[in-house]
């Protein structure tokens, strides 16, 4: 996935994103970091036609995402929103929705095969005929992740996927994202506030500051200087049992 000179401003003229450029290889897990209002969610929405950037390109394997029709785009990009609503649909039907971009008149046997395979691998079979709104937050997020994977996208966008989850579910969901995206060579792009979760699971990091890229790269870009510039607090990056951890100083 390659982003070049992406700019976005609202019709009222306020510029949110300015000349965003970065590259994320297939199978990588990229964290977009930044303070509130830095434009992180706006950036994700630009990738999925929810917002239309004024200039720039987003290419995946040579295709410019910004020129695609809705159904074509949905075959390339899946979106996992934060705190998604629980609908009165069964888990199985929710996953079938992921096949929507491929459907002509109705569900094909192939669609059902993909759904069943995904249910089995993500250990969600026991929930298949439960309603989505009867599930716990963690179960629901896993189901919605499964739906995104059933879409067979090349890019998976995640907007604060762990915001309503307990500790265990945060780790389980992100671990699933990392595993599945590596296995399927999907580029995952996640907006997240928790730096330590990002350090634990992501391969690449992008600091967004006032609508511009401050730094982008592997774990080495997560430095006290960048953290201070973006969040305005002093912190050190330590290693605890081999895991990098950001420790803020008050």
């Amino acid at each position, binding site marked *: 996935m390659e982003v070049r000179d992406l700019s976005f401003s609202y019709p009222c003229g306020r510029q949110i994103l300015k000349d965003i450029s970065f590259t994320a290889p297939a199978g990588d897990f990229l964290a977009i970091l930044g303070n509130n209002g830095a434009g992180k969610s706006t950036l994700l929405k630009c990738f999925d036609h929810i917002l239309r950037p004024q200039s720039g390109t987003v290419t995946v394997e040579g295709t410019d995402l910004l020129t695609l029709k809705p159904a074509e785009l949905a075959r390339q990009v899946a979106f996992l929103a934060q705190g998604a609503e629980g*609908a009165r*649909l*069964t888990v199985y039907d929710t996953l079938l929705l992921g096949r929507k971009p491929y459907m002509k008149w109705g569900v094909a046997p192939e669609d059902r095969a993909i759904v069943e395979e995904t249910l*089995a691998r993500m250990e969600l079979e026991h929930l298949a005929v439960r309603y989505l709104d009867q599930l716990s937050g963690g179960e629901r997020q896993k189901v919605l992740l499964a739906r995104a994977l059933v879409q067979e996208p090349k890019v998976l966008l995640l907007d604060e996927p762990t915001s309503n989850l307990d500790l265990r579910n945060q780790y389980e969901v992100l671990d699933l994202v990392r595993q599945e995206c590596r296995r399927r060579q999907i580029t995952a792009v996640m907006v997240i506030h928790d730096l330590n979760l990002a350090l634990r699971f992501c391969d690449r990091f992008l600091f967004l500051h006032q609508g511009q890229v401050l730094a982008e790269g592997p774990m080495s870009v997560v430095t006290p200087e960048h953290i201070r510039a973006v969040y305005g607090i002093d912190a050190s990056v330590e290693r605890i049992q081999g895991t990098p951890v950001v420790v803020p100083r008050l």
Partner: protein
Amino acid sequence: MNLHRKVSAGLTGRAGYNLLLRRKWLAMAALACLLAALVLVSLTTGSSGLTLGTVLETLLGGGTAQTRAIVCNVRLPRIAAAMAVGAALALSGCVMQGVLHNPLASASTLGVSQGAAFGAALAIIVLDAGTQNAANAASAVTIRSPGTVTVCAFLGGLATTAVVLGLARARRASPTTMILAGVALSSLFSGATTLLQYFADDVQTATVVYWTFGDLGRPGWREIGLIAAVTAAAFLYFLWNRWNYNALEGGVQTARSLGVRVDLLSYASMILCTLIAAISVAFVGTISFVGIIAPHMVRRFTGSDYRFLLPCSALGGGALLLLGDLVSRTVMSPAVLPIGAITSFLGAPVFLYIVFRREAL
């Protein structure tokens, strides 16, 4: 009747899902059987005391001239009208609830029916599209120009829909706000209709008043055919988009990310809902709450899966209105009570139930 609990206690995965699908098909077939049974009961219920045998014989081409007149000119059109209008109102309610994300939405609760009623009244009184032509008030109201009445009813309904859509888009109104706006619009249009009656002559007023109660005996085959054809066309569009409505259940953003053209779908759906509700109002008058009760009842076993919800709502709406008509014809026989009053008696408690249950959540 919670199919899901029973299923989830036993089978899971593919087998459980297949079982669930089978049960949903069965439920739909049961609903169709119920509708067929109601049609038969309806055919044999009435003051002339025809037996089932006589009715069937007449339907197959036999019978006397008198039985033919009763069955083919009185009862069959009434039954067909009830089914077509019931299906139209239920479908419009069911789709509005999905598109607006509001379980309380329907043509009558949002004021679309009242807007359509005003439009139709305007056509009858001001544009002189309908007259009352005989002494027998029950069957005498004729609409001389169904086209004009339909168009005016549609425009009246559309005015309300435009306000509702504006609220939903621009203000992101909560479901409650939307219903409150519906209450205001209903009052506005009802008041306007009353004003029209005030300035109309006796005959025109009788025409309009009679039909604000709702009357399934009024439309002739031509009007019934029109309602049925338009509703069938809308049903096909809705069914074509059944997966899009399912996607919309997860929110606008989710639907967009699944490739649904949300704005186009919402506008087209709301306009079609308005059309089928308005055309029903134009020919049988205002019948409230069918669009709430029928989808709400079938949701109990279909959930929000529009693959089943749409056809089941149509069948349920037809059955409900047929049942309402039976009640209206039998409780104070030979007097026929206004169907609109019957459905309101049934519907208001269901509406309150939904409100209370949502409060509890």
